[in-house]
Each structure stands twice: as C-alpha cells, then as structure tokens.
C-alpha cells in the first residue's frame, strides 16, 4: 500500500461520491439465485445496516464485495471509481475491511502477532511488530480501541477478540468496515461497547456496513438500512423514518407478530430436579460447577447466558451424551449420569425429548432424507419397525403427517435434510421431538438461523406444549427470546447459575450483568470490570 493511494482515497472520500456503490449485482449458485439485481449506495461516514432473514443473500452480497465470490453480473464502485475485486487482497487494497461472525484469529498468538499476520513488511518480524505497536497506540488513541498488544488471544474475552478483528482491518488502512452479525457472541454490555466504538469510527469518517438480523441493533445504530428478501433488495430507507414493525414486514413479506402471545403459566409438580450437577470435560476443565435447577410441569425455564458458559453441557448431560456427577431426577426418578443407561436412547425412554442447539451437527443427519430424520433417535420405536427391518412406509406416512402439521416446506418426505431451509430443518426436528409427547422438552437455540416467519411458529409450538402441562428447559443466547418465552429465567455464567429472575421483574440490563458474572446489581460497575470478568471466564471456558 503506497502513500499515494491513501491520499487519493481520502480526497475522493471528501467528495460526495458514495463510499460503496453496487450496481445490478447478481449471483447464482446452481439453481439458487442468491443475489438478484442488487443495487445499493452507501455514503461515506455513515453506518448502513443490511437486514434480512437467513438465506436472504446478505452474506453472499458481502462476500462478493470482499472478493470471496465473483458476481455473475453487476459492477462495484468504490469512492466513485469502478473497481474489480477478484480476491480479498484486492478488497483490502480498495480499503475494505471485514469482521467475520466467526473470528479468524490464531489463538496462541499475541494480539500484535495477529494484527500483522498477512501484513508483515519483510522477512524479519521485529520491524513489523515494532511498527504495528506504534500504529496500535495511535489507533487506540483515535478510536478508543484499547487492547493489550501482548496478550494472547486465548486469554482475552470475546468482545476483546472482536476489537482485535476491527484493529486488524484498521491496521490495513480500511476506510470501509463490514461487520457480519457482530453481536451474536456478545453480552448486551459488550454490544453497547461495540456500538460506541462504531459511532466513534463513524465520526472519524469511516464507513460501516452492519449485517444483522436483529431489528433493535438496526434501529439504534444505523443511519440508513437496506432490507433483503430472497436474494432481492426490497427497500432502502432512512432508519429515522422507519419502525421495527415495518422492517420486519419488509423482511418477511407479511405482517409479523414480534412478541409471543401467551397466558400466565399454570405450573404443576416438579418434573426435572437437578442438584449439584458437575461436568468435567475430556480435557479436565470443569464446565458445570454444581448447578441446581428445577423445572415444573407447565413451565418454561429459560437459561440465559453468553455461549460457552455451561449451557451446552447442561443440555448434553440431560440428553444423555455427556457424563456428569450430581443428582438429576425426572418425576422423582434418579437418572443414570455416567453408567450404561446414560445415553440418548434411555433418556428418550424416560420421556425426555431434546431439540439440540446445533441441528446440523446433532439434530439431523443432513444427508438423510426428511423421513429418515423423522425416525432419528426413535428408530427403535415398534411403530417404525417391521421385524428386523425398518418399516419405511410407516415412517414416510408419519413424516407426511408431521410435515403437514408443522408446515414444513416443501412437504416432501424424500428430500434430503440439507435441501431444506434452516427454519424448515428446525421444524422437522421440532415435529419429531414435540410429537413424542415428552414430559420434559430440552430445547437449545430454538430459532438460531431461522427466518422471522418461522420463529413465530416455533415459539407458538413451544408455548402450546407448555400449555399441555409439559416442562420445558429453554437455552438461548438471544436475550429477547428468553424474555419473551420464559416463565422463569436462570442466568448461567462460568458453569454456575448466577441467579433466577421472573421475566416481569427484570430487564436486559440486569440479566446482562448476571451474564457477565456480576451478582451485586446495586454496586456501581464499570465496563472494564465487566470485561475483566468476561475475560476471566473466557480463559477458563474456551471451547476448542
């Protein structure tokens, strides 16, 4: 990168040409049209939101802008001049920086080493590192991006890691920053911190594109917002002139109920009783540290927490595929946590159904057809069997019924799971688990990667099961979802339950503090304090 190009870029940025202009971008993957004739103008020094459901084509569009894919048609204009972006090197040269949803950092490198990775000036590291250290100080002063340059990535919290990603882009002299779902892994406090940084970057003249599916973030941070639906750009509006309801409608194409309709819970007896549950994983790290929880019949217990604080292990132990110690009772009966009865089959026989957090890795066999997935985990059911063989006809008929009742589209039992959209995949799992009529439903991230239209339906199904008097243990990293669905909320941090709240007596702020491990809600606490706590948790809880 030569000094000339930098000054040139600043000169053009000062004029009124859009920082980014896409003209008629189209991209097809096989028969799927991911982007259809998309045009967009992003003015310099603004925050532009791109919102849309999963599979609407947001990520494809940004991948084209960042040089991962080549558009079939269309032009990219950067700062008023037409630019070809065949690869990410070209994107960086054009002043575009990208912060991915999943960070691309080397865990056992320091912050500084990660920042220069791929941008070393010569064969020797020392001069590059020294230069990076100087630049880092400047950047920290300019934008309030403070990080310890010598800390190892594995020792710092997720929020801090994200900051390193932003610094990486700025170090490469990015004027345009693209952030892909940046708050997915952050606590509310960390998210606020991020948005303050973005505001500062904007005031320094940087252009920011924020990709998200969270309406609230769009409303709070962006200047303009573009809505994508099924590969098309349906609208671009000024944020101040729109509302969440309007955006949701633009995303889905019809009116959407943004809150969950439910009556107060009619709770019955205790169904699930957990006492002192402890899990030590294969590497000897303590994932759960003496968890006590109870879930009653006719109640949804929501577990809030930042991903990786023991919620996954809790579901796995209850689902029967992770060993643990302590006492877990279902309807008063002690469950085997380590022995030969500790597997998914025996849990199902006990009346526990489980919608796992990751449907693609656990809940479904992606290569299996829908009907084969309908039997998954229940393939020993006598109704599904004909002697030694599987009763494929019976399973297919059952699947047809389930697909109809759960509005799975397309309703084709012979389509492989991987060919359904995220929402329809989730409906297949839900239909399988809910129609077993379980006493206890474990459900993890019920609407992750699910489109808004399907979210509404899935929430209704969960509430309907509760109203039948079943116990439901809900794990979600989406606080809004926890608040909307739960009858009672438990917050987990660092393998412990930090506290329980009733949704009507609490708010995102209080839960956010609990998620960061701060129980004393009256004491004043700085962002630094929260961060220190999170970093501590991250170093202990880091999953490989």
């Amino acid at each position: 990168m030569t000094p000339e190009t930098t000054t040139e870029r600043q000169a053009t940025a000062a004029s009124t040409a859009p920082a980014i202009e896409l003209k008629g971008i189209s991209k097809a993957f096989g028969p799927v049209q991911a982007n259809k004739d998309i045009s967009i103008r992003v003015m310099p020094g603004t925050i532009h939101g791109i919102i849309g459901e999963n599979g609407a084509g947001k990520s494809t569009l940004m991948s084209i802008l960042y040089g991962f894919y080549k558009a079939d048609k269309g032009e990219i204009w950067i700062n008023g001049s037409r630019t070809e972006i065949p690869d990410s090197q070209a994107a960086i040269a054009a002043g575009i920086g990208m912060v991915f949803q999943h960070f691309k950092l080397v865990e056992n490198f320091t912050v500084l080493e990660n920042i220069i990775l791929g941008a070393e000036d010569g064969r020797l590291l020392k001069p590059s590192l020294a230069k990076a250290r100087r630049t880092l100080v400047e950047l920290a002063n300019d934008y309030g991006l403070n990080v310890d340059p010598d800390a190892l990535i594995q020792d710092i919290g997720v929020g801090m890691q994200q900051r390193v990603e932003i610094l990486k882009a700025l170090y490469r002299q990015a004027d345009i920053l693209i952030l892909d779902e940046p708050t997915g892994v952050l606590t509310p406090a960390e998210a606020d911190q991020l948005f303050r940084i973005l505001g500062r970057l904007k005031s320094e003249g940087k252009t920011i594109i924020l990709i998200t599916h969270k309406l609230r973030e769009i409303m709070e941070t962006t200047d303009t917002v573009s809505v994508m639906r099924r590969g098309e750009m349906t609208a671009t509006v000024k944020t101040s002139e729109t509302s969440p309801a309007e955006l949701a409608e633009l995303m889905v194409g019809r009116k959407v109920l943004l809150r969950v309709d439910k009556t107060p819970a009619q709770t019955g007896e205790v169904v699930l009783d957990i006492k002192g549950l402890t899990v030590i994983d294969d590497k000897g790290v303590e994932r759960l540290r003496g968890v006590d929880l109870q879930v009653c019949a006719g109640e949804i217990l929501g577990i809030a927490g930042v991903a990786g604080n023991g919620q996954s292990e809790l579901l796995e132990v209850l689902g029967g595929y992770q060993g643990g110690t302590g006492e877990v009772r279902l309807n008063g009966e002690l469950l085997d946590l380590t022995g030969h009865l500790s597997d998914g089959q025996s849990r199902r026989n006990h009346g526990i159904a489980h919608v796992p957090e990751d449907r693609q890795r656990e809940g479904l066999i992606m290569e299996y057809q829908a009907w084969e997935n309908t039997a998954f985990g229940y393939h020993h059911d006598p109704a599904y069997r004909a002697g030694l063989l599987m009763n494929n006809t019976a399973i297919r008929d059952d699947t047809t019924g389930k697909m109809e009742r759960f509005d799975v589209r397309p309703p084709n039992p012979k389509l492989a799971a991987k060919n359904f959209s995220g929402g329809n995949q989730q409906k297949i799992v839900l239909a399988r688990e809910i129609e077993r009529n379980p006493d206890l439903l474990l459900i993890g991230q019920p609407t992750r990667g699910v489109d808004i239209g399907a979210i509404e339906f899935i929430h209704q199904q969960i509430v309907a099961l509760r109203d039948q008097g079943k116990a439901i243990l809900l794990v979600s990293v989406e606080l809004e979802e926890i608040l909307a669905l739960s009858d009672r909320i438990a917050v987990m941090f660092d393998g412990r339950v930090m506290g329980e709240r009733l949704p009507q007596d609490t708010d995102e702020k209080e839960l956010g503090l609990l998620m960061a491990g701060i129980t004393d809600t009256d004491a004043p606490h700085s962002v630094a304090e929260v961060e220190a706590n999170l970093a501590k948790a991250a170093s202990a809880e880091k999953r490989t």
Partner: protein
Amino acid sequence: MDVMPKWAEVVLVPLISLLLAAIISALVILAIGEDPVAAVKLMVTGALGSTYGWGYTLYYATNFMFTGLAVSIAFHARLFNIGGEGQAMLGGLGVALACLYIPWPHWSLALIGAAFMAGLFGAVWAAIPAWLQAKRGSHIVITTIMFNFIAAALLNYVLVNMLRPKGSMDPATARFPDATNLPTLHDLLAPLGIAFSKAAPANVSLLVAVAACFALWVLIWRTRLGYEIRAYGHSESAARYAGISPVKITMIAMIISGALAGMMATNNVMGEAERLVLNSTEGAGFIGIAVALMGRSHPLGVFIAAILFGFLYQGGAELALWTSIPRELIVVIQALVILFTGALDNMVRIPLEKVFLALRRRKTRGAG
C-alpha cells in the same frame, strides 16, 4: 435441490470417467509403440470372448466382490479398512483348518463350515484394530495396514512350521480332501445343458458373493443396524445425540467388514487352489478399495465394479501373454481407472452438473 438426475449421477459420471481412463491408457499403449485397438480387442476376447475367459473374469470378480463389500460397509461407518488383504489371508487360514481337520460329508456343508470359519477368522482380525480405534483412538488406517504385515508373517509361520506336510519343500498346506472341492461353473451349468469351460476356476462361491451383495444391501438400506451405521458415518455428533454408541458401531461395522474380506478365501483357497499357499490373496484386498470407491459403496455398484476389475485382471493377463506389453502396464491401466473413477470424480461431475443446469434453464425458459 440435486442438480443432476439420478441416472446421470450413477451411470453417466462413472462411464465418462472410465472413458477418460481408457483414452489415457490408449495413449500410454501408443507411447510404448503398441496398437491400442489391437490391445483392447485382445483384452475383450481374452476376458469375455470365451467361457474360459469369462470363467477367469468371474473368478477374479468373486474375490473383488467380497473385498469390495468389506471396504464398503466400513466406508458407510466412515471407517477406512485397508486391512482387507490381511483379513482375507486369515480367512484362508480359517478355510484351511475347516477343510483339513473336519471330515465333511458333502461340499455344500463344507462350504457353509468353511465360510463360517473364514468369516470368523477375518472378523477377529478386523476386530482388534476396531477395538483399538473405538477404545484407544488408534487410527484404523494405520492399524489395519500394520495388521496386513502381521497377517503375512503369521501365515508364513503357520504354513512353514505347523501346516506344511512332513517332507514337503513347499510352504503350503496339504491338498484339501476331495469332499471339500467346490463345483465350478462347468459343473453347475452342465445339468442345464450349458457348456462352460472346464479349466476356468470360477466356482459356486460366485453365488455366495452375489448373495452377500444382496444381503449387504438389505443390511445397509433396510435394517435399523444399517440405518445406525450410515448415521454414524455421516455424523458422529448426531449419532451420539441419538443414542447410537460409537463403540458399538465401530466394532460391528469392522466385524462385518472383516468377515466379508475373510470369506473371500472360499473362492481363492477353497474353490481354486484347494490348498492354502503363501500369498494366496494376490492383492485382492487392496483392489477391494478401488472396487468400493468405484461402486460408491453401494452393493450393486460393487458388483458391477468387481466384474469390471475382473475383466481388467483377466484381459491384462492375456495382454501380457500374447503381446510385448509388459504386465506392469496393466497395473497402470488399473491405476488410471482408480484415479479417474475414485480420486478425480469431481473433474467429471462438476462440468456435467453445469451442463445439466444449463439444460434445465433452457427448458424452464422454453416453458415460461
């Protein structure tokens, strides 16, 4: 959506791959100064032009069906069993013990008994690496390869020191009793009035192999066990979620795999040699990998691929016999077939998908 219709996926892709392999093979034959057209003619007449040729082609194909099925079932559980060779050797030992030490009244009973022993020996030989993988995490590719060498050494020891008849210079067992000799295709087809070559070694174990193809198809695609094996092969994490035990599946898949590889011995040891010699398997265990790859681990595919490889083996032997094309070139041709049908699959598949996509676009445009 799947881009290609199923028939293109199953038939067209391997056919084009084969054609490419054939073209390159022709160029290689041309390069060493021989006539590729004459070579192909010789291969076809040698392997398929007479019942003698067919007899050898089918004999080899029988071996490859067993080992190909063995590799396939392990593939479905995402286990790479490279130990078919060793398991087949041990199967030979099982056959030899059954034939030599039990006085069978009739060949049919002898076949059942020998097949059982062959399967048992092969299964045990596969179960050890399987157990090491399931319980200790030792990689099955490494352990099964090593078990091939151990099997060869073990067989060497047993043949030289234990089973060799007194005074014999040959490291082989005594000839099996006549009652255990299997009927050849000549014996089987004669009552039907079909004249089949007397000299060819193809025998009744071909029918066993075909039955094994069918049985394995039922197992993989129709039973709960097959469902669990495939599920585990696709996703171990999902299998754990569903309560499918990784240890159980690894053990069962490898035991079935080893038993199938071992049962190959009913063909080469019992049906052809009628005694156990050193290196009786002649690399059929390794060809099984190629057969499984080409047959996409589907029993019908394995059946077809095994016959193709049988043809290549027999045709190649004829080439070496009648022309100055060296036998090594046959290995080159086989390698090309494996390379194109197995490893370079996407080279054919992706352009073909584009063709089908373009066709479909044109069709929808025409309709709309």
